[in-house]
């Protein structure tokens, strides 16, 4: 599995889907349009700062609130390669898997990563390396059931396989 590399954008607890992508932009579902407003109400500078491969590092209950799949779509299209959090709200977590945005749970890493740290993530092994600080962490493994969906390439290909399409 290929390695992801990028800098950390660090946020706190309960980053909700309203600040990830405000409802005033929900009449569209084009990834590029959504990405232009990603995290606008939490960090207006985010879209200017973010570079392809960067990662979001956040506290508890990331993605709480609305079921809008526009949230992980906006994050992914903004160039974020992975979200590392202490915990995820459940609908956001489902949506992230379904749209192919890696979402890793690792409270220890979140506690120690600082803004701007250079990170490397091996998704297959669930390893998070903080290259700036020289520290490594093991993320919580995905439940076996979800590994099948991820291995199939997401829920759409998984569903096609189930329907033998």
């Amino acid at each position, binding site marked *: 599995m290929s390695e992801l590399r990028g800098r950390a954008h660090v946020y706190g607890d*309960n980053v*909700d889907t309203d*600040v990830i992508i405000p409802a005033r932009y929900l*009449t569209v579902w084009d990834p590029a349009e959504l990405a232009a407003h990603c995290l606008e*109400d939490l960090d207006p500078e985010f879209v200017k700062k973010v570079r392809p491969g960067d990662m979001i590092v956040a506290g508890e209950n990331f993605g709480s609130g609305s*079921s809008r799949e526009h949230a992980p779509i906006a994050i992914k299209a903004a160039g974020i390669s992975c979200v590392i959090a202490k915990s995820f709200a459940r609908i956001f977590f489902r*949506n992230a898997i379904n*749209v192919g945005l890696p979402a890793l749970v690792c409270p220890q890493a979140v506690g120690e990563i600082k803004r701007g740290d250079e990170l490397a993530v091996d998704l297959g092994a669930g390893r998070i390396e903080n290259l700036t600080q020289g520290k490594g962490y093991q993320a919580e493994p995905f439940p076996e059931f979800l590994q099948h969906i991820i291995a199939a390439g997401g829920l759409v290909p998984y569903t096609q396989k189930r*329907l033998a399409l």
Partner: protein
Amino acid sequence: MGHTVTEKILAAHSGHDEVHPGRFIMARVDLMLGNDVTAPLAIEEFRKVGAGRLADQAKVVLVADHATPNKDIKAAEACRVMRDFSREQGMEHFFDVGRGGIEHALLPEEGLVAPGECVIGADSHTCTYGALGAFATGVGSTDLAATMATGECWLRVPESVKVVFRGQRRRWVGGKDLILYLIGQIGVSGARYQALEFCGETIEALPVAGRLTMCNMAIEAGAKNGIINPDAITHDFMKSVTSRPYQAVVSDPDARYVRTVEIDCANIEPQVALPHLPENARPVSQVKDITIDQAVIGSCTNGRIEDLREAGEVLKGRQVHPDVRLIVIPATPRVHLQAIKEGLAEIFIQAGGALSTPTCGPCLGMHMGVLAKGERAVATTNRNFVGRMGHPESEVYLAGPAVAAASAVLGRIASPEELS
């Protein structure tokens, strides 16, 4: 060992004799739901799957409620995607403007959800239907698309938290106050991934409208579903909306819960949740000198006729404060018509309030009552996140209909007791 109502419903829908928390299942879904925000994306993903036809069109409900009546051209295009798709698929449950209203008020009215059923919806407040003894949970658009194609949805069986409400509710205390109080106690991630099962004598005496309000906000504690064991009140409600049969199940006396929370309702005052989290609940008497610019009474949380009656009782013969804009939004056309018949529409308009057609609009800051920078609203809606109702520097205070109405009159957050 016994099972909870949630476990029983999920077992019955996955071909198992019993299921335990933590197990992943493929659940047969009785009803699935999308709206004008989530359905266009689901339809796009459905086409990618390539199934062609819906697995069962009768189990799919699409409601145009969020940015409707179409707020702009993009919203109009999104609604057209739903309309065209529903025609193409010969869907019987597409609810357009004027014939639908807010999804979570509409579906129970239409008798589309019954005890013992399994419902998923691409809307986080799908958990509302637990009030009727159904398992109901929110998912995203791709999950909806996959379920539209297969009729099934993967679910992890949740642990259940038992919340026992005891004692008699005080005057002006309703389902909204009970759920805000609970979220204040356990926090916005207090029931993350879990089922919140509401029970106890207070719940047994609570009418269906209040139960719907409570289960509606289970998601605000991070819960997968909120649920109330169906009883005589549930069955009476079901008789009033449908004659179709259903299989109700209830929790066993020896069911296992991950924890139990006990709440004495006798001391609970009407609640207000301060910005910017629903867990910031306070008794209204402790929220002083908070002037408001807008009051919104409506939404999937509190837009039913019972909510409008409560607001009408407070507003009758009174005037909305000159500095406040009151917006009242009946949740469905049926509620709207009933409000007219009962004279409530006249009370709201005479008081200086704006009576709107059904829409989710202002709750999520889409339209019909968006806040400017620095403005403050009291709302009977469900979320007070940063920027939820408009500008990121605006504020939303959550409350029940009586507090919202009293606040509209006094121009500051206030208890209806202050008016009498």
